[in-house]
């Protein structure tokens, strides 16, 4: 019996039979529902926004990393390799893009997830973090394994060890200077006039629970002063050996090594806004109770989404 015979299935379905009607009804009503389900549930962002955690050794990066991921910090030691994890925003935080959305929307959950990358802070291992700052953004890289430019940076410092003139302040400021300079260079190298997009930087002043910790404002000021000093001594210092001869780097303009606005004067994080780098200093603590906790940092992360 071929399909075009009188009592074959197409004829039966097209005829006024009960099965035909039921099947048609099912198809007619289910397709929109399924389509809705499919479109709304399956459309999670392909690449989650990445937050790169960096900072000098011993500032509490890995603790923060585990705290954001699990909700409780785990004991840590010096990191040797970067780690990646997916974290979900706590329910109390509303992301910037979802401010006017209903809380019942099922797509909310998908947008609450972020990727955190923890990098080692040891002096020899900072290339893990710094290499990402000159990498193309995730949308341009094909494979997931290639390091890509993060959505935002979290620079962790130990607020209790930022006494003026101390070595730890100098180290933190030198690292922060390098990071900001890398971001500025990235902006300067952009071909289009639009620039490569804004990069939010959170300076997380950690260990606020300690008695010796400086408040966020003081931390910001100390870091600004110290970064200014680093900037000055870098400018006065010797050239580095990569310069001469090959001509590649010599062509870079004079300003390339000078962070922030040209000319004399104090360095301020505000100057970085010119190159689309928004620096914000927020205090908190990962370990130890009684401090401001990580809530403020979560809120900052929420604002960036």
């Amino acid at each position, binding site marked *: 019996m071929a399909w075009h015979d009188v009592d074959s299935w197409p004829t039966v379905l097209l005829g006024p039979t009960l099965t035909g009607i039921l099947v048609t009804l099912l198809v007619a009503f289910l397709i929109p529902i399924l389509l809705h389900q499919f479109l709304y549930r399956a459309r999670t962002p392909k690449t989650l926004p990445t937050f790169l955690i960096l900072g000098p050794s011993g500032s509490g990066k*890995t603790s923060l*990393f*585990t705290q954001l*991921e*699990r909700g409780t910090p*785990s*004991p*840590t*030691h*010096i*990191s*040797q*390799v*970067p*780690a*990646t*994890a*997916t974290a979900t925003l706590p329910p109390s935080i509303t992301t910037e893009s979802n401010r006017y959305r209903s809380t019942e929307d099922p797509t909310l959950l998908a947008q609450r997830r972020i*990727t955190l990358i*923890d990098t*080692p802070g*040891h*002096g*020899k*291992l*900072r*290339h893990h973090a710094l290499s990402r700052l000159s990498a193309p953004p995730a949308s341009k890289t094909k494979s997931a*394994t290639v390091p890509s430019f993060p959505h935002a940076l979290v620079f962790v410092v130990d607020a209790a060890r930022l006494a003026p*003139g101390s*070595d730890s302040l*100098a*180290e933190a400021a*030198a690292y922060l200077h390098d990071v900001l300079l890398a971001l500025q260079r990235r902006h300067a190298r952009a071909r289009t006039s639009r620039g490569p997009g804004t990069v939010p930087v959170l300076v997380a002043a950690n260990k606020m629970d300690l008695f010796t910790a400086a408040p966020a404002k003081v931390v910001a000021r100390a870091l600004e002063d110290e970064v200014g*000093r*680093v900037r000055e*001594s*870098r400018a*006065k*210092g*010797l*050239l*580095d*050996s*990569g*310069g*001469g001869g090959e001509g590649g780097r010599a062509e870079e303009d004079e300003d390339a090594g000078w962070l922030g606005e040209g000319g004399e004067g104090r360095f301020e994080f505000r100057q970085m806004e010119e190159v689309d780098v928004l620096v914000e200093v927020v205090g908190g603590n990962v370990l130890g109770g009684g401090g401001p906790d990580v809530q403020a940092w979560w809120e900052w992360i929420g604002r960036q989404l």
Partner: protein
Amino acid sequence: MLDSFEIVSTSGIVLWSKKYAIVPSNVVNSLIANVFIEERSNAPATADRDDASAARNPTYKTDGYTLKWTTAKDLGLIFVAVYQSLLHLSWIDKLLDNVRALFTELYRSQLKRPNTTVVDCGGFDGYFDRQVQELELRASAIATDSGASAAEFTPPSSSGTDRSAEERQEEQPPPMPSLKPPPAKAIYDDTSNDATPVPTPETSRPNSPAVNSHLLAAKGTGPRGKLSRRQRQRQNMAGSAPASSGDENPRRQQKARSSKKSRKWEADGTAVSDDEGDANLDYSSAPRDGPTSAPAPPIENVAQESWGKRTGKGEFVLKDLDEEMDEIIAAANAKKEGRKDANAGIVGSGLGAIGGLFRNVVGGKTLTKEDLEKPLKGMEDHLMRKNVAREAAVRLCESVERDLVGLKTGSFTSVETTIRQAMESALQKILTPTTSLDLLRAIQSTNAGTPQRPSRPYVLSIVGVNGVGKSTNLSKLAFFLLQNKLRVLIVAADTFRSGAVEQLRVHVRNLQELSQREGGEVGIYERGYGKDAANIARDAVSWAAENAWDVVLIDTAGRRHNDQRLMSSLEKFAQLARPDKIFMVGEALVGTDSVQQARNFNAAFGAGRGLDGFIISKCDTVGDMMGTLVSMVHATGIPVVFVGTGQHYTDLRTLNVAWATRLLLS
């Protein structure tokens, strides 16, 4: 007693730890920083193909603690045991190896999950405690009595023994009573001859495959412990065979085997020493074939169930944990052996070779030691052509090999490219300083002073072998400092070579003319020839402090680094002049000797004081043969601060690591 035991991932998260006493966190941190990141261990690095057993890793001592460690590279784990240096715990190595085998087997799947760092290993305490108890018990047994009481200290479980005895009964009818199966040996090998578990023949339990499967069917759903050990063992083997852990050491095992006295057990339980029985004991191949060749997929489910129940119960848990533990360790060890054989087989065959070639082009090849051998040799030769000292080149290649073995190459990358990338990052790691030196800032803060310590001049001293360019580099440094409007005092502490003081005087005259235009001020402090250099330096520093100089640059006499008489005066010099920084000038032209030079000078200033940096001079004369940079840093772990690149005062540069790496690999 053990103070603490930690399992740390390379990303810095403590996955599991057991603390018996409070150990400051910086103890383990200093181990990681010094041994893993800066690779500063004195013992020659063991570039073993797999994670070396804990016994072969050098012991690390700090703050009165002794740290023993081992790693599981493929999973990125470090196992650290910490105890007081006063104690001598011989069983720590064993514990580390066993715990590594257990932990990697139990949590392998969890550790491999991407994008998370959570590893739920709350149940590991039981396993660990049991291991410690057992090993401690045996250790104390050895200590108190070794001869007569041996039988008593046979560990409670001898599951491996039973298992293989049964196995053998199946395959070869007449059971040898004195058999000692390899897995059991692998667990308990190096503790003592007398405390090794002694297998008892399983004569009372005849077993056949038919009976076995019947039992299985009947007891599959029964409570815990009803499975025969052999079956559980099999499941273990079958379940975890494809995955491979990396922790066994065949060489050590063999050694232990050969040193062991064989013993036969009579039916009545008396031990008979048996010297000619060695031939019987070599069953290294039979059990390996046995369990792996017998497939046992249908019992997989049962195994999981009973396993879970067992761990959940109170009294039984201990004994069962014990068995389970032994099985896991034995399985890991046996699997290891099996894998090695399989490897040889596939690589040896023609098909494997062609596949390997194809993979080499396309990528996705899992690297083995054999694959890396030739390209690494090429890389080593390349580095040595670049004037890297042999010692340093070998070390770099070993660290690259350690990083790469077991890794997969990326798509469309050959082995050579992968090695090149790995070498690049190894070079970068070795050349990058831990803390970067900002000389101007350091001078500023010293001159400014703090409430705690008054302001004083910043003292820089320069040492080195004869004729490497100490005075020239000193004047270059002085020029750089003068440009920053600092007041620089140059001290002629070379009271030995004729013309040294006059040479500095010429430099100072030139610099004075420059400084009149640029600002800054330069002076010379000289006391003629023949005086003691250390005293001159001390006087100069105090004089400079009185007259408010900003920087004191001390030039010293060149000395041969293996002349004890000349080198010994450096210690006194360091004590009297108390320089803030001591730089050693090394020339880029020197070859293999650079390693010895750096070491000897670094050690010459007495305990607690070493070099602070190198200035590599004459870099313009060697082109891209910058090997000396690497050799010197390799020998001491002290960074290269400046590079001399020409004859003029302005030809002093800071080191650009990327530039140096590029030259070395070009």
